[in-house]
């Protein structure tokens, strides 16, 4: 398996001297193609810092972040911006959809910024909107859509053009559970199709969609929950469901 995202001994200290806060300490991890990894931990444990570093939105004070073979710390600003546009898709709790653009224009925007012609960019955007089941609403503006539909537009934007790495920070936000599950299903499907995904969440139910769950505390990884060695044992060993 090939790692799309790799963190090597990453540290992140905010501030200096006596007020310095160590947000991440010596974090190493890999997310492979086809894999969805969830990150859990109490507030202040470093979850969002981790995601921002993985997405090149923040730089580590120690260690290396490697995305699709590129060491982000060795990229100049232009190269870094290109990695962010082409390789990484972001889904945030705040959707950051532009209100003056229609759904398809919002989704096409990253490709257009990347120099793809408008026609081609719109084509890619329609493919992404179809994948999230919103092709019919492509011409609507964000304020003409429900919260769940807007969230799906944001996901389509993160997935447009087959990004290799999808990063999601509490992507289900304030959505009802049914719509929230739809969002996770999309993420899962994208990862099953070959993308690498990292999901920050405080909801166990959402983290459970991942192949691995990483637990952070005080900026460090304290444990990882991988797949069961023998899943068939599970059903006969459930506390409280037995006689």
């Amino acid at each position: 398996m090939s790692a799309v995202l790799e963190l090597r001994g990453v540290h992140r200290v905010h501030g200096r001297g006596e007020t310095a806060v160590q947000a991440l300490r010596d974090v190493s991890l890999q997310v492979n193609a086809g894999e969805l990894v969830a990150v859990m931990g109490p507030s202040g444990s470093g979850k969002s810092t981790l995601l921002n570093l993985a997405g090149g939105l923040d730089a580590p004070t120690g260690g290396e972040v490697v995305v699709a073979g590129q060491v982000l710390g060795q990229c100049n600003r232009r190269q870094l911006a290109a990695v962010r546009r082409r390789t990484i898709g972001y889904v945030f709790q705040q959707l950051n959809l532009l209100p003056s653009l229609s759904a398809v224009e919002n989704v096409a925007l990253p490709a257009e910024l990347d120099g793809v012609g408008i026609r081609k960019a719109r084509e890619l955007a329609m493919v992404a909107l179809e994948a999230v089941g919103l092709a019919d609403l492509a011409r609507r503006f964000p304020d003409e859509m429900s919260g769940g539909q807007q969230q799906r537009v944001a996901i389509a934007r993160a997935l447009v053009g087959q990004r290799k790495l999808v990063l999601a920070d509490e992507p289900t936000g304030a959505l009802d559970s049914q719509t929230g599950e739809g969002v996770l299903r999309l993420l899962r499907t994208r990862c099953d199709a070959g993308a690498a995904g990292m999901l920050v969440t405080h909801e166990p139910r959402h983290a459970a969609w991942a192949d691995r769950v990483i637990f952070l505390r005080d900026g460090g990884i304290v444990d990882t929950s991988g797949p069961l060695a023998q899943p068939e044992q599970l059903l006969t060993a459930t506390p409280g469901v037995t006689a």
Partner: protein
Amino acid sequence: MSVRYGLLALLERGPRYGYQLRSEFEQATGGTWPLNIGQVYTTLTRLERDELVRALPESDGGQRPYEVTEAGRAELARWFATPVEHGDRPRNELTIKLALAITTPGVDVRGMVQAQRTASMRMLQEYTRLRHGADSPADLAWRLVLDAMIFQAEGELRWLDHCEASLARFTPAPLAPAPAPDPEPSTPIPGGTR
């Protein structure tokens, strides 16, 4: 709950013999409750003694089917109509283990909470995976059984988060668990100092 109501419910659908009952019981509970054939026959014998089922003549293949009696039907209806009492459920080992860990010197309670969290998360991941493989309308019973386990694992994880937060707030967190000096040695407190 015991196996007896499960068997009564299956016999309500028509006469059945032991092996049939075992496989249908396991099917109905989504494989979460494996039975051995000995349990099935012991239960049938007791149900017959209580006149809730009656044995029918042996078939040509030497299998003896059972059918439910009127009294059995009434007993089953009563069971369906009665809410499950919490006291009927097994006591939760995890709750007791944590309560004891907090009051036992030298136990790494946070480590214990995290180890449990990882284990419960792993189960929740697996239930979730199974849940999404059970999409057809025919899978409804199995899906609901899985949902129950998902809710349970989720509840356990929430409770563990709550425990951790409470421990962080209320424990002074000494590096080594030293025996706490008793401020009032004249009043022994049974069961610990908290």
